[in-house]
């Protein structure tokens, strides 16, 4: 273990690293159905993938700039909300990422 790094800190860093890649997959998967930020955050939390908005919104903006998501501002319940959905490119990437995920998952399951 690196000097000055305690066990808890190290575990936390590795856990975050592990989660980071999975979060992209979870967000893309959840946005097959159009949602706005807050409901997306709730959906993910209900599925055990809690994510704070300081991570979620920059991620959504990044995925949108990469062309994987599309968004539009729309009024709902007298409030303007930004709705996100998977773009056609996003659908293709999600499909490929899911098969990659299944491959990794089955490999790991075989190893563990």
């Amino acid at each position: 273990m690196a000097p000055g790094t305690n066990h808890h800190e190290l575990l936390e860093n590795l856990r975050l690293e592990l989660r980071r890649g999975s979060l992209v997959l979870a967000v893309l998967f959840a946005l097959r159905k159009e949602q706005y930020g807050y409901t997306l955050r709730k959906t993910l939390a209900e599925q055990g993938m809690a994510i704070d908005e300081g991570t979620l919104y920059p991620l959504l903006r990044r995925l949108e700039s990469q062309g994987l998501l599309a968004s539009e501002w729309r009024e709902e319940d007298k409030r303007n909300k930004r709705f996100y959905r998977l773009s056609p490119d996003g659908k293709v990437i999600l499909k490929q990422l899911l098969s990659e995920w299944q491959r990794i998952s089955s490999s790991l399951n075989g190893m563990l």
Partner: protein
Amino acid sequence: MQLLENYLKAVADGLPPDEREDILRELSEDIRSEMDEKAAEVQRPLSEAEQREILRRHGNPLLLAARYRHDNRTLSLGRELIGPALFPFYVRVLSFNLGLTFVIIGSIFTALIVAGQRVSVGAVAWNVLLQLVIQFSVVTLIFSLIQKHMSKNPDRWDLGAPRGVHLDLGYAKLGKNVRAGGRDSAWVSRFESISILVASAVALVWLRGVQLDPFLLFGPAASFLKLAPVWSQVIPVIAVLTFLEMARASINFVRPDWMRFRNIVQLLLGAGALVLILFVLNARSWVIPGEGAGTEILRRTVQIVNTAFLCVLVAAVAINAVQLVTRINRLRRAGRKQASASSVDAVC
């Protein structure tokens, strides 16, 4: 929704300018949705403490804003001294300080060249380098101390204690009302306070340095130019005014909601600065020949440098006078706003 507005303004300070409005609209919508849901759950408007708790969960506004930036620039010398959250403010303060110093130094060297004095490239380079090292060291030291404090206490931040928190969960379009550090904002940006503290501290160090070694101001011309006696009278007063502004910024750092306090103190200090500049202007001579000087070319140099000083001082009087009028107007506007708000409250 005053607390939410304060929070969004604090976030706005650190957001990329071209995306600021869009990010704030979305963030505002997210937090409002959470507050609405909580209010529906408890079947009453949220208390101030409950609103604070929700905002606290959203995290330090500066760290939140840093996540939206694409550059994520930091300053590292072996280890990270200034992280991405503070870096834009660090660059802003350093650029302002260096810009101001170089304008002063540049004016003096230009005056020397115009007067026919020989100014070597080496002398100019040495002076520029010296200013660069001093400003860089002091500003970096102060910001790295702030960074150290922030890293040790990421959760130690506060939204101030605004008077009269409105608990209505109305659906006003907050995004349009959010002005990052706006002049008529109801809240003094904490980074405005920090920037003033840092810039003032550097100015004091520089002022003391100029007193001890005029090379900092005149460069190689320090061997035959001296500051006129008027400066020994006014520099202590400048230092006192700067200390008072630092005290004001420190108080506003703790109480960002004391807008009236800021406006009044800045008005008084501005008036003091104007009187001081007029006093300096009245001296008519700001640079005098040093010992061993007596040539015609030197007399011309002193004359040209004094003319440059005159131009700078006249410009300073004009800028200060305009600022003073603006501040008086701002104070009057704020007073009228407060009076109309009190009369609405009385009617309700």
